[in-house]
C-alpha cells in the first residue's frame, strides 16, 4: 500500500498547479466565464500543450498512457481554481464513453483529436424524466442506411452548448428503463435536426437541453450494447468529481482559515474564538474523510469485480456529498456576510460543491443504494 505518485504523475500535478496559480486567479475566472462559450479557449490550448487532455487515454488509442490517477490530479487542481474549461465534459464523460464503449478504430480516430485540443465533445445521456437513472432513455435511434436517425430530448448536457460534436445515448430496442438495448451515437452538434437550448448553470458553467428530430448520426461501438459501458463512464465520472470536490473543499478550508486569521472583531482575530476554531477543525475532519474516499474512488475504477466497484464508488460519492455539504455550509457561516456576495470566490466554491452532490446521485441516493447491498467490509 502506498500513496506515492510516479514522476510523471508528479509532473502533471506540478504543471497544472502552476498553471492554475498563474492563470486562474478568481478575477481571471470571471473574465473567462464571460466569454460566449463560458470558458477560455487559450487555456484549453494550454491544457492540450501540457498533455492534460490526452493523459488519461491509452497510448494505442493516441493518448499518453495514464488513467484515473492523472484525472484525479487534474480535477483536484481544477476544483481548487473552479476552472471552467470542459475537461470533465470532454475528457472524462465523452472520453469515458469512447474508452468504454467505442471500437479500437473509433478510439484511434477520435482520441488524438481530443488530446490535441482540436475536438471538444460532450456526452448527452440524461433526459428530462430520467433523474439519476442512467438507463432511463426514451430517445430512439433507428437504422437508416449506413447510419441512424435520432429522435428525442436530452437534458443537462454539460458544455453541450459549445461542443463541436455530441455523443448521444439512445435506445435501439427495449422499454424506457431497460439496461439492454442502448447505443452510443456520434453527431455534429449543428447537424440538421439538432436543436440546442443553451443556458448557464448555478455553478457558473454552461449546459444545454438538446432535442433531436430525425437527426442523422453514426454508431459508436455495437448499438444495443452500451449499457455496461455507460455504467462505467458514470463510475469514472464520479471518481473525477470526487477529486474536483476535494480540491474545492481544500480551497474552502484554506480560505476559511485565512479569513479566521485576518478578520478582526472585538479587537482580536476571530480565529481566536474556540467556537469558530472547532467548526474549522470539523471541516478538516470532513475534508480528510473525503480525500480518503477520493483515493478509493480513483483506484476502484480499475477494480474488475463490478459489484465491488459499484459499492466503492457509491461509498465515495456518499462521503463526498456529505463532506461537501458540511464544508460548504460551514465555510459560508465562518466567513459571514462576505460569503453571501457574488463577487467573492467562496460562495462559488459552495455552489460548485452543491452541484457536484446533485450530480450522478446525491449522498442519500448512494446511501440507499449501499443499504440494499452487502457490507463494504469483507
Amino acid at each position, binding site marked *: *500500500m502506498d500513496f506515492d505518485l510516479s514522476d510523471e504523475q508528479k509532473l502533471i500535478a506540478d504543471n497544472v498547479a502552476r498553471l492554475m496559480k498563474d492563470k486562474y486567479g478568481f478575477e481571471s475566472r470571471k473574465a473567462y466565464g464571460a466569454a460566449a462559450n463560458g470558458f477560455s479557449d487559450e487555456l484549453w490550448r494550454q491544457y492540450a500543450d501540457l498533455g492534460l487532455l490526452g493523459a488519461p487515454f491509452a497510448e494505442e488509442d493516441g493518448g499518453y498512457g495514464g488513467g484515473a490517477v492523472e484525472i484525479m490530479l487534474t480535477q483536484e487542481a481544477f476544483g481548487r481554481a473552479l476552472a471552467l474549461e470542459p475537461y470533465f465534459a470532454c475528457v472524462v464523460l465523452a472520453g469515458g464513453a469512447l474508452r468504454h464503449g467505442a471500437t479500437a478504430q473509433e478510439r484511434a480516430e477520435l482520441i488524438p483529436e481530443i488530446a490535441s485540443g482540436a475536438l471538444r465533445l460532450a456526452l448527452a445521456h440524461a433526459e428530462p424524466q430520467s433523474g439519476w437513472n442512467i438507463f432511463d432513455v426514451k430517445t430512439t435511434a433507428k437504422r437508416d442506411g449506413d447510419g441512424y436517425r435520432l429522435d428525442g430530448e436530452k437534458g443537462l448536457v454539460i458544455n453541450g452548448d459549445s461542443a463541436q460534436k455530441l455523443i448521444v445515448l439512445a435506445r435501439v430496442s427495449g422499454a424506457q428503463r431497460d439496461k439492454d438495448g442502448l447505443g452510443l451515437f456520434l453527431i455534429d452538434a449543428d447537424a440538421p435536426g439538432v436543436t440546442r437550448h443553451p443556458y448557464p448553470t448555478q455553478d457558473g458553467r454552461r449546459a444545454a437541453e438538446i432535442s433531436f428530430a430525425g437527426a442523422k448520426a453514426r454508431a459508436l461501438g455495437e448499438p444495443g450494447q452500451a449499457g455496461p459501458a455507460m455504467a462505467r463512464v458514470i463510475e469514472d465520472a464520479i471518481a473525477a468529481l470526487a477529486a474536483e470536490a476535494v480540491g474545492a473543499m481544500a480551497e474552502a478550508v484554506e480560505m476559511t482559515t485565512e479569513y479566521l486569521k485576518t478578520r478582526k472583531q472585538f479587537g482580536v482575530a476571530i480565529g481566536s474564538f474556540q467556537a469558530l476554531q*472547532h467548526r474549522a477543525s470539523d471541516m478538516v475532519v470532513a475534508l*480528510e*474523510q*473525503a480525500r480518503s*474516499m477520493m483515493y478509493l474512488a480513483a483506484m476502484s475504477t480499475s477494480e474488475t469485480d463490478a459489484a465491488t466497484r459499484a459499492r466503492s464508488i457509491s461509498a465515495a460519492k456518499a*462521503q463526498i456529498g456529505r463532506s461537501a455539504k458540511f464544508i460548504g455550509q460551514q465555510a459560508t457561516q465562518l466567513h459571514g456576510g462576505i460569503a453571501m456576495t457574488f463577487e467573492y470566490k467562496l460562495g462559488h466554491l459552495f455552489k460548485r460543491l452543491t452541484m457536484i452532490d446533485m450530480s450522478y446521485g446525491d449522498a442519500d441516493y448512494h*446511501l440507499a443504494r449501499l443499504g440494499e447491498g452487502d457490507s*463494504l467490509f469483507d
Partner: protein
Amino acid sequence: MDLGFSAEEIAFRAEVRDFVAKNLPAAIHDKLAGGHHPSKDDIVTWTRILAAKGWGAPHWPVEWGGTGWDAIKLSIFTDEIQRGHAPESLAFGTSMVGPVIATFGTQAQKERFLPRILDLRDWWCQGFSEPGAGSDLAGLRTKAERDGDVWVINGQKTWTTLAQYADWIFVLARTDSSVKKQEGISFFLCDMKTPGVTVRPIQTIDGGHEVNEVFFDNVRIPAENLVGEVNKGWDYAKFLLSNERNGIARVGVSKARLAKIRRLASLGVYGDKPKMDDPVFRMKLAAAEVELKALEMTQMRVIAAGRTAPKGKPNPMSSVLKIKGSELQQTTTELLMDVVGPYALPYQPEQGDRWNEPSVGPDWASTIAPTYFNTRKVSIYGGSNEIQRSIIAKAILGL
C-alpha cells in the same frame, strides 16, 4: 499509487486471523463477542498465549521482545485482534509505561519491568488524571517530596482503569511548585502494595466497575523508581500520550460491531420483519460503513506518512482519527440500540463468571444498552474530542 495490500501483508493478515481463531479460548471469544467485558484472568490468559508466540508487545524494540513489524503489519495485527473478539493487550503496560521505560528508563528498570509487562506478570494502571486535572492534565496537584532515599507521594488520582487488578501504577506528581506547571512534574513507578495506597471503586453509568480512585497517603517509594530526570515527567507523558493515539481510531472494533449489527438485525426477533428490512435503518447502517471505510483509508494515509516523518514527532492527523474513530464507536452502539429495540430495557448487571446464564429477552440483548452508555466515554477520554479539535485548530490550521 497502490491502495491494495501486498501479497505478504495479505498472508500476514490470514496468519494472524488463523492464529486468533485457533488459539483464543472459545469461552473468552464468546464472552467478548456477546459484548461482555473480559475478566482479569481472560486478559492474562490471552496475553500469555500471545507472549508465547512472541506477539506480546509487537511494537516494542526487538531486543525487549518486539517483532520488528512495520506500521502496516502492526495495524493489521491490531485490526485482527479486535475483529476476532480477542482481549486487547493491556495498554497501560504495553503501550504506555512500557515504551516510556524502554525509551527513558535505566538499564535496571528495563530489565526489571519490561519482561514482566510482556507476559502480564505485572498488571499496570495509569496515575494521570486527578479530580482537578482532566483535560488540563498539567494542572495536577499530587505531590512527591524527596526524603533521603525515598520519594513521599501525597494526593489523589482518578478514573484509574482496572486499578483493582493492578500490581503497579505509574504516577505523574508535582516535584516543583515554583516553576511553570509543565516544568515541575516527575514520572514515578509505584508498587500498589506500598503502604498508603488505597483503591476505591467508581461505578460507571452502565453499572460496571472499570475505573477507580487511587489515594496516596504518605506513600514512600524508593528513589530508583523515578523515571528519567526529575521535573521532566511532562515530556515523558507527552511521549506516552502520542503512543496512546496509535490505534486510537479502533477501526477493528467498529468493524466487528458492524458485522454483529448485520447479523443481529437479520434475525427478526419481534415485529413483522427483521430490522434489516427497514430502509431507514439500512441507510443509517450504510452511512456508518461509509464513514468507517473512509476512516480506515485515513488511518492508512497517516501510517504511510509516518514512514517518512521524523520519529517521535506526533502527527496532528491522529486527532482526526480520534474524533472520527470515537464518533463511529458511538454510532455503532446506537445502531445496536436500534436493533435491540424494546428489550434494551431489562437491567442485567454483569455477573463475572456467570455471564453466560439465561437472560431476560434475547440472549444477546443484555449488553446492548450498557455498551451504548459505556461507549460515551470514548469521546471524553484520551484527550476529549474538544481537546482534539483545539489541537487540529492549532497544529493543522495554525489558528
